[in-house]
C-alpha cells in the first residue's frame, strides 16, 4: 500500500493494525535518528525507545493532506523528543563517579556471592569482598534510590517536602535579589523578556510557550538556555561589583 493510501485508510478507520503497519514501515527512521545521538551518555536502546514512541505518537498527528512526506514530518518530531529526553536527564542529580563505580562493583559482587553461597550477601560480606567499609556499601546502595518528595517520612509525620529547608532569605536579601533581577532583566531583548514571563511567570511548558510566541519548541529551548546564561552572568557580575 502506498504511503498516502495507508495514512488515509488509518485516518478513516482508526484501525490499530493499520497503525502498527505504518509504525513498522517507518521504524527505520527511529533507528536512523537514534544512532545520530549515540555518544552523548545515553545508551542506543534508550534512544531508540524514545524515538520509537515519538514515531507512534507522530503517526496520529500526521496530516497526509498537508503535502509533506511522512519522513520529513516525523524527523523533527523524533529529534525533538530525543532532545527533550536529554534535557530531562541532565536535570537529574548525577552520582559522583566513585559512588557510581562502587554501585557497579556492588552489583557484580552481589551476583558472584549469590552464586557462591546460594543466598543474597549481607553488607558485611560485600564490604569484605570489595575491601570497603560496610558504611560505604550502605551509602552507595542508598545513593541510587530516587525518593519522592511527597513520600511520607513516618506514619503521620508529613512528607520529606515538609521538612526540607526553605532557604529563607532575610528581607534585605530579598530586596537585593529583586533589585539584581530587575537589572538583569533589563539587559534582555523583548523576545527574551516574553520568554521569561511565559516560562517562569505563567509557568507554561516550552511547547505552550512556543505556541504563544509562534516559534518552534526547539527555538524556545535554545533561547531559554541563552537567557538563563545571560541572567546568570549579569547577576554574577552584579554580585562581583
Amino acid at each position, binding site marked *: 500500500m502506498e504511503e498516502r493510501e495507508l495514512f488515509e485508510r488509518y485516518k478513516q478507520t482508526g484501525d490499530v493494525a493499520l497503525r502498527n503497519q505504518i509504525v513498522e514501515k517507518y521504524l527505520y527512521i527511529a533507528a536512523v*535518528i537514534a544512532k*545520530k545521538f549515540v555518544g552523548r551518555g545515553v545508551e542506543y536502546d534508550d534512544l531508540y525507545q524514545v524515538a520509537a514512541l515519538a514515531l507512534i505518537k507522530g503517526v496520529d498527528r500526521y496530516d497526509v493532506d498537508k503535502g509533506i*512526506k511522512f*519522513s520529513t514530518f516525523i*524527523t523533527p518530531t523524533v*529529534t525533538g523528543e530525543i532532545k527533550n529526553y536529554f534535557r530531562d536527564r541532565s536535570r537529574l542529580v548525577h552520582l559522583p563517579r566513585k559512588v557510581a563505580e562502587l554501585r557497579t562493583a556492588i552489583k557484580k559482587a552481589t551476583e558472584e556471592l549469590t552464586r557462591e553461597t546460594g543466598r543474597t550477601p549481607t553488607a558485611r560480606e560485600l564490604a569484605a569482598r570489595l575491601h570497603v567499609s560496610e558504611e560505604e556499601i550502605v551509602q552507595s546502595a542508598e545513593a541510587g534510590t530516587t525518593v519522592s518528595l511527597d513520600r511520607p517520612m513516618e506514619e503521620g509525620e508529613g512528607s520529606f517536602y515538609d521538612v526540607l529547608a526553605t532557604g529563607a532569605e532575610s528581607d534585605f536579601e530579598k530586596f537585593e535579589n529583586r533589585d539584581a533581577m530587575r537589572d538583569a532583566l533589563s539587559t534582555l531583548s523583548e523576545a527574551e523578556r516574553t520568554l521569561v514571563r511565559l516560562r517562569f511567570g505563567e509557568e507554561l511548558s516550552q511547547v505552550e510557550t512556543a505556541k504563544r510566541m509562534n516559534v518552534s519548541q526547539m*527555538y524556545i529551548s535554545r533561547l531559554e*538556555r541563552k537567557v538563563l*546564561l545571560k541572567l546568570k552572568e549579569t547577576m554574577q557580575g552584579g554580585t562581583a561589583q
Partner: protein
Amino acid sequence: MKGLLSMRIPLGSELMTTVRLTTGGVCALKGLDIDASEDCKVCVTESLLLLRHAGYGEAAVDFSDDDGLMVAIEGAGRRKKASPAPEDEISAALLEALAESVRMEKKEGAIFSVSFRFAL
C-alpha cells in the same frame, strides 16, 4: 562575518571523526554549549553525507563567526554519479530540526552546498 577556519577534506568515512573533532573544537572556541556543539557535529556529518551521496569526492568546510557559528559546506573536486540514499531525506530534515538558517543549494538536481547557523 569573520572567518574562523576553512578546510578541504576528502569525503571518506575514515575522516569523519577528524571532522567531528575539529567541529567540536571550533564550537568550543565560539563558546557553544555541549548540546549545541553535539548538534553542530551531527549537522556537519549529515551535510558531508549528503554531498557524498550527491557524488562529490571532496568538500570545502568553512566555519565563520556570525553572531554565533555559521557553517558553510560545499561539494568540491571531481564529481561522480550521484547515488542518493533513502536516508538523505532524513538527513535534510535533521539539519532543519537542529540548526538555524539552514540553506541547501542544488545543482543539476543534486545538493551542491549546505549552510547553517548555531546561535550563541
